[in-house]
């Protein structure tokens, strides 16, 4: 199956990338957008999701500073390429 892992900075940890994006928005006319956080997206093929939490905690995310979320992707929903 095709799996998407979303990795975000943990709540409460200063996210300068998110802040920088947020600060740029008013100048583009998006003054009503807030709470911006920038994370990472990893897509992968896996036979089962059973061991994916382990994979996330060992490599894809650093549990001390990041949260992760595992999503199974429906056919036709994955990023091309």
């Amino acid at each position: 199956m095709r799996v998407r892992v979303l990795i975000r900075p943990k709540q409460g940890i200063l996210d300068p990338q998110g802040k920088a994006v947020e600060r740029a928005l008013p100048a583009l006319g998006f003054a009503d957008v807030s709470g911006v956080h920038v994370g990472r997206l990893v897509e992968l093929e896996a036979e089962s999701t059973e061991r994916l939490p382990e994979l996330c905690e060992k490599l894809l995310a650093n549990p001390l500073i990041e949260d992760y979320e595992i999503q199974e992707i429906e056919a036709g929903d994955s990023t091309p390429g």
Partner: protein
Amino acid sequence: MFGVLQFPGSCDERDALSACERVGDARIVWHEDVDLDGIEAVVVPGGFSYGDYLRAGAIARFSPAMEAVAEFAGKGGSVLGICNGFQVLCEAGLLPGALLPNNGLRFLCRQVDLEVVTDQSLFTRGMDIGESLSVPVKHMSGRYFAPDDTLDELEARGQVVLRYATGQNPNGSLRDIAGVTNEAGNVLGLMPHPEHAVDPLTGSADGLRLFRAMVAVAA
């Protein structure tokens, strides 16, 4: 004998080797090598190991050489991680905490003053508490982070060895922490580059003192 690790993407291993050679013997340890025979102290140098893909240090920690270093550290061998080396040691779980992108988001390259926090560490042997070391920083992800209760423990146990001098914290590191050790005290990670401060000709030789302290332990 110092062993200086080299990963694909390391870029400070030659300066680290040269710093070690000013105080003793040293050789490069390629990332695929697991043979640390004869090595009494390990330096994990700066750079961009494995392109810093995913997170700085995240992939290097799985290299064969790092497994050997973890075993070496477990037996009490002294290990110094500089910049990317610090990130690798944190990712490997050999040091507490993590390094986040600088709060200003810029790559920083400047000379900073470090304050020696403890004279009890093997890495600051012979230095005085409150003494100042002039050493350069050059990094993009150097903001030291650990949860508050961990930081309290680190301070209580004397694991915070170096701090940025008042007003000189370049990256937003919590509690101005520039360098921490593991609980046993034999592994030190720091963002500043002591290997670039080994000759008065280039501004400071203060960094050499850390390498000297390591030799005193190995001998």
